[in-house]
Structures are given as C-alpha cells and as structure tokens.
C-alpha cells in the first residue's frame, strides 16, 4: 500500500478545521497566516528532501528569492497580488534552474556543504546589495491591490489568512499529485538507490532537477506570500536560521509524507509563539532537544508516531475480534 495515501480520511477534516480557524480564533489570524506560510515552505522542502532525498541546508535561498521578487514587483508598481505570487514562484524556480545543475552533481555531505555555503553567499549578497534589499532595514513599502480586486487587506489578517490558505491548499494538492505520479515513485526510487535507478535506465539527474525546480517554485511562492502578508522583507528570509527552522519543522512532523510538513509547521510555530517572550538563547534548548528527540524516536516524526499508534491499536482490535468465538 502506498503509505502516503493512508491519511486522506483525515485530510478533509483538516482543511475544514483550517477554515474554521477564521471563526474560532479571529484575533490570532496573523499567527495563523504565518503558520500557513511556513507550512507551504515545509511542504516544498519535503518534496526535495523527504521525497527526492536531496539533503539541502539552504532552502531559504528560494524562500528569500520569492520574497524579494514579490517585494520588487510591488515596488515596481505591479500591485496585483496573485500574479505577483506566481511570478515570484517562477523567479525562484528559474534561480533553481541555474543553481540546480551544479548543486545536484553532489550527494550526501558535499551536497549539504554546497547548499549551506550557497545560502550564506546569498545572505551576504542581500546584505551588500542594500540598494535593492534595504539592508538591515529591509523593505517595507509593499503596496498591494485588493485580492482579486474585491477583498481588501485588513488589520485582522482575515483576508491574508484565507489568501495564504488557498495557496497552501493548491500547493499541497499539487505536491500530492507529484508524489502520487510515477515521477514521484521514481523520485522515491532515487532516494532509496540512485545507482540502481541509473541501471533501470532512469535519467536520474533530470528527475532530480525537476523535483528541485518544483520544490523551489513552492518555496518561492511561500516566500512571496510571506512578503505580501507581512508587507515586509528583511534579509533574515535568506538566513541559515530560516533554512534550519523549516528543516526542524519538517522533520518534527515527519519527512516523506507531505502531511508531516503541515503537522510539523503547526506544532513548531505554536510552540515558538508560546515561547516568544523567552530569551532567544533559551529557545535554542527547545530546538536542540526537539532535534535530538526526532532522531531518537526514529522514522517519521510526529506523523510516524501517530501512524504507529493507529497501527498498533488496529492490531489489538483485530486480535480481540479474533479472540472472541
């Protein structure tokens, strides 16, 4: 059975609950918006890391590229937001199209180092190019037209949240589509055993590049949504912290299932929010402990734990049913 498809029964209630947030927590919609943005970013990382096995520590590059592209479009007078997001996603994918062929030549540790160094380079570049990025002050003069010409952006972030949620829904369904296709199966094959894939005649590099581009596209969209909904882009969108944050979210939820990206982003962002008053150094205890915890519990993160619990209870129920005459 396709492990990915064991959870659809919970998916519909999830989206309903996500919509219900508007009614239940009307005053926390800024937070909910930020969570939805990071969830989409985590989904994009899962496509590259969890599904295709591209071990990257520099995915903030595409999140940041999307954010700056969206901001640049707005400052240039392109105020229509939806097309702005799409264009920003394409810009990020184009960047991946340039960097990807080089990055994907390596695997494992060299890949980690290359993506890390490239990420740092982009961060330094953004700090130096302060004419374009605003340097330490960031860009905050992002002016947008109403969504679809009808829905006005509001202080309560209700439009923002629904806007991001719509993109998250579409992006998630797209990612699920990719994973469920035979291309997606090929990606999981490459993750398991790239050598044998080559001996099955698979164009391994081209498969990986297309996965990387799709992932960058979604990451760019997430970055653009972040820029549009907060009306602000700072250089920290490109920082290593951003790359590590999204990695922690993904592995906390569980890699390779796409659902883990949603769960992880929600849990991580909520915990982070509750600890917002803390000294940032103390927050590092939490991240460090989370990472150690995730590795110790083994495969699958929180989604993996949930799966194991349901499987075990199903077995117990089955055994009881058999035990009765």
């Amino acid at each position, binding site marked *: 059975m396709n492990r990915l498809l064991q959870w659809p029964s919970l998916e519909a209630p999830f989206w309903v609950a996500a919509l219900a947030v508007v009614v239940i927590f009307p005053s926390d919609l800024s937070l909910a918006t930020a969570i939805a943005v990071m969830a989409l970013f985590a989904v994009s990382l899962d496509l590259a890391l969890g599904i295709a096995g591209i071990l990257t520590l520099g995915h903030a590059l595409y999140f940041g590229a999307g954010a700056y592209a969206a901001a640049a479009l707005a400052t240039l007078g392109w105020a229509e937001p939806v097309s702005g997001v799409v264009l920003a996603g394409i810009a990020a994918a184009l960047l991946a199209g340039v960097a990807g062929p080089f990055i994907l030549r390596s695997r494992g540790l060299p890949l980690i180092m290359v993506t890390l160094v490239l990420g740092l380079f982009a961060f330094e570049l953004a700090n130096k190019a302060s004419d374009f990025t605003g340097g330490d002050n960031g860009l905050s003069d992002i002016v947008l037209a109403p969504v679809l010409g009808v829905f006005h952006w509001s202080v309560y972030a209700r439009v923002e949240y629904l806007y991001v949620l719509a993109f998250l829904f579409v992006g998630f369904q797209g990612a699920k589509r990719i994973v469920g296709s035979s291309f997606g199966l090929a990606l999981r094959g490459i993750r*398991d055993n790239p050598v044998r894939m080559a*001996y099955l005649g698979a164009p391994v590099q081209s498969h990986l590049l297309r996965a990387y581009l799709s992932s960058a596209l979604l990451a760019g969209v997430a970055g653009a949504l972040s820029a549009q909904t907060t009306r602000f882009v700072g250089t920290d969108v490109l920082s290593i912290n951003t790359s590590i944050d999204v990695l922690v979210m993904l592995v906390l939820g569980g890699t390779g299932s796409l659902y883990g990206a949603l769960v992880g982003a929600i849990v991580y962002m909520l915990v982070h929010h509750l600890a917002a008053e803390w000294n940032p150094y103390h927050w590092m205890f939490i991240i460090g402990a989370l990472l150690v915890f995730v590795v110790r519990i083994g495969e699958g993160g929180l989604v993996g734990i949930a799966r194991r619990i349901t499987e075990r209870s199903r077995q117990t129920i089955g055994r009881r049913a058999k035990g009765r005459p």
Partner: protein
Amino acid sequence: MSEPMSESGASTPYALTARGLHKRFGGLTVADNIHLSLPAGARHALIGPNGAGKTTLVGLLTGLLRIDSGQIWLGSTDVTRLSPQARVKHGLVRTFQVNSLFPSLTVRQNVELALSEHAGTSRSMLRSIGSLTHLAERALATLAQVGLEHEAGRRVSELAYGPQRLLEIALALALEPRVLLLDEPAAGVASADAERMMSAIERLPCDIAILMIEHDMRIVRRFAQTVTVLVAGQVLATDTPEAIMTSEAVRRVYLGSGGQARYDHRS
C-alpha cells in the same frame, strides 16, 4: 567500422558483440583483448577464478567502466561510447551480485519503477500512478514470471533474502531486455531457495540473450549452452559445458592444484 555479423554471414547480427576489449587499472591489465558474442536467445555462462575479471567485464559491458580500447555492439548499434542509461535503453540490462533494490518501497512498486522508466511514463509529473492501470497489471505479471506475485504488497525491507534475489531478476525483466547480464544470481541463496531461483531463470523468455556469471558448476551445467572461461583478464576458452569440464587446460589453469576436490564435488 563494420557491423558485427554472425559467423554464417547471415544478416542477423548478434544480440551482443564485444571485440578486443582492453582495460588497465594502473599497471594491472584486467581485461586483455576479450572477444565475446551472444546470439539472440543465448544461454552463456562466464566462469573463472576470483579476480579473473568477471565483474570488471560486466562493468565494461554495461558502461560503468570505460574501456581503453575495443568495441561493444548491441545488435547493430555501436554502444561503446554510450552511458549506462543509454545502454539500458538499447536493451542491455544487468542484475547485481549484491542486492540493489529499493528497500522502502513495496515489491510491486519496485517493479513499477522499472516498468515506468522503460515505458517513459516516469516523466509525467501530474498523472496519478493509480490511473496507469496497465502498470499495476504488468507489474503483477512480471512478478508472476519469477513467482513473487504473492509478495507484491510487502515492503522490500521486510522480504527474505531469497525472494530479494528473485526481485533482482524481476526488475531486470521489467525492462524487456534483449541482453541480460546475471551477476551470480544464486549467490548466497540457501539451497531451499536455489531450486526456485533456477527454475525462475529457466523460465526466462527464450529470445533474451543471457550472460550469467556463476561459480557453481551444477548451475552452469544446467543453464548454459556455451561457457567462457576467463583467467587473469583473458579468455582462456569458449566451448560447450561438457568440453570445458573435460578440458585439461581449463582444469590446470582455472582450478589450480587445490581446486580438484571442489571441482569434482561440484560437477
């Protein structure tokens, strides 16, 4: 460069032709002027002592290693300069001596991977694999060829060693090879599973040319029409199994002094 023709001069070329293959690693010659030709449907065994260069030869034929000189044809196509992937597309498929599978996927998904690469559907990103119903059917049919259809839903990591060896062959079969290189298919298989393996090999489609590397003379005798003996990177002899086994030269060079007992026991 002339096309390789079968000896009778007929217009049907060999399924696989290797001419004058040379390979050196530093000062060591691991392939020395090797000639090999397999007609369609060949059942050819490659034997030789450890270090004779059998695995190297497979590497050269599949394109993992680059030859220093010589030529390789698949049918009438010169594949000498082609990548391993391109050779697969021309019908040259191999299995691995050490299982090389996709452990986190199911048995059926393993075969589906091979099928969809072969059919070219692996490039379609948005069509659900479930909608490719013929893929699932063909996967089950391929598994049935090696007797694994009842394991289709199990994860490979949960599969015993013997069935994993069979899956190696099923993966190769899914690619509809014209030439199949079996690298010690029975290596490490318990005797209980060996019969299952042998009968699976005997059931392989008869139009595939098969080159099998094998140590076990019982298997070689049962399988092969032709045997090539490789010693120190050179072809010592190519002949029928019976002729090879009675050849004094083969006995002397291949078996050495201590090999007598093992040879007798195995044959």
